[in-house]
């Protein structure tokens, strides 16, 4: 065999090798599609790809660093004053929010419902974004070392961004809500109608394909997470309804929405650890039956039925 390989100087018998490796690829493909046996393999190779990602990311962050460090004093002063104003405004809003939160807690206590658990949040930076236009996947710089886990919800300042689909050691892959494979349980904030928002492959559009023609939904309605899927905590803004087309002979209305987060432009996102303070809280709330003790989702549900 070795002699043969040496003699055939220019033809290194690629056919056999292709057959073996091609077969191996098929096995990998099927295993990867059908199950999650290969997750550890992915993680191991993912760690090996990490330097590549860093290399790709370095020029960008270097450029930003240069830009920030060479900004003139004047610009910095301007930005500082702008930020001060912004901080004031935000604080004012926050004060109102705190008052509302206190009121909410009081009302909830009156209803006998549990106070909604606070979530722990950590800021993560996006390292790269999938180059494939049909898979909206990005890589963030937090991995299992930072506590990230599969199925973890990701938001930014404006709304829901996506969820972690693969937590590596140092970085994780996250699927955006605009990915065609992504579906997100949402609720219309005004009427409480629950449905599913499905990604379309476009960064600025989500579809709501499962709403009946008579559903209470209008253009401009705010969609929030319903929390029913389990992955996303309830109450985060997802988007606003862009168009509602009702065709009488079709069972479902054609509804599309604009995501609240500008999915094509974000650089920093936030990872959420729901119920980090009290791990058993969610389960306890779900187990407790009875209308008085209903978790927030069911409370909204009754509104929808009215």
């Amino acid at each position, binding site marked *: 065999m070795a002699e043969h390989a040496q003699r055939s100087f*220019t033809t*290194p018998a690629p056919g056999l*090798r292709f057959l073996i490796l091609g077969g191996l690829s098929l096995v990998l493909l099927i295993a990867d599609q059908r199950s999650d046996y290969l997750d550890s393999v992915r993680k191991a190779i993912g760690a090996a790809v990490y330097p590549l990602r860093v290399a790709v990311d370095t020029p960008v962050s270097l450029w930003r660093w240069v830009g920030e460090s060479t900004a003139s004093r004047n610009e910095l002063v301007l930005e500082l004053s702008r930020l001060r104003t912004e901080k004031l405004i935000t604080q004012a809003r926050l004060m109102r929010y705190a008052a509302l939160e206190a009121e909410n807690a009081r009302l909830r206590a009156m209803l006998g419902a549990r106070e909604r658990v606070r979530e722990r949040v950590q800021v993560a930076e996006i390292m*790269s974004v999938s180059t494939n236009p*049909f898979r909206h996947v990005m890589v963030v710089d937090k991995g299992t070392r930072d506590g990230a886990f599969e199925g973890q919800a990701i938001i930014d300042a404006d709304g829901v961004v996506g969820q972690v689909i693969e937590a590596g050691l140092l970085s994780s892959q996250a699927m955006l809500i605009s990915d065609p494979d992504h579906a997100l349980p949402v609720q219309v904030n005004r009427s409480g109608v629950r449905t599913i928002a499905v990604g379309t492959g476009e960064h600025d559009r989500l579809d709501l394909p499962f709403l009946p023609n008579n559903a209470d939904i209008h253009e401009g309605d705010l969609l929030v997470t319903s929390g029913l899927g389990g992955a996303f905590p309830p109450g985060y803004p997802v988007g606003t309804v862009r168009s509602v087309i009702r065709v009488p002979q079709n069972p479902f209305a054609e509804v599309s929405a604009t995501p609240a987060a500008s999915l094509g432009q974000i650089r920093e996102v936030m990872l959420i650890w729901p119920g980090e303070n009290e791990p058993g809280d969610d389960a306890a709330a779900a187990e407790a039956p009875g209308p008085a003790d209903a978790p927030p989702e069911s409370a909204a549900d009754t509104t929808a039925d009215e």
Partner: protein
Amino acid sequence: MSSERQARLPVLLCIVAALLLAIVPLPEWASPFRPDWVLLTLIYWSIAVPRRYSVGTAWVLGIVLDIAYGTLLGQHALALAFVIYLTVKFHLQLRVFPLSQMTATVLVLLGLYRFILFWINGVAGIYPELVIYWGPVAAGTIAWPLLSLFFGGLRYRVAD
């Protein structure tokens, strides 16, 4: 062919550069037209030095691409390995092709590569839009003449 004496380092650098270009973020309008740099690089070097850069290299790089893109494991590996198998099998004919004919061949190879990816996606239940899917084929074909001139220069400098 003085393939045995050829230095490995420049080619490895080319491959690493191709991988970097393959995962560097592009603006949204440009990303459908990103050429398949890894495949183009592998086509050139597997024709030039088929004993060293062949199906095995292609497969390993394909796995790396699968991880980097987050696609099904083995998808890019299978497509790359198959296309490189064809180029290695016909490398003697391909070597004597003039640039115009070689560019046309590269068009076919890139199309085949995309078709395999497309087909695997289809079997797995992912249906992408066709038009944008073939953007890399066009971009890659346009990039080929420049790339092969660049690699050619590199190759003879290295061989000296």
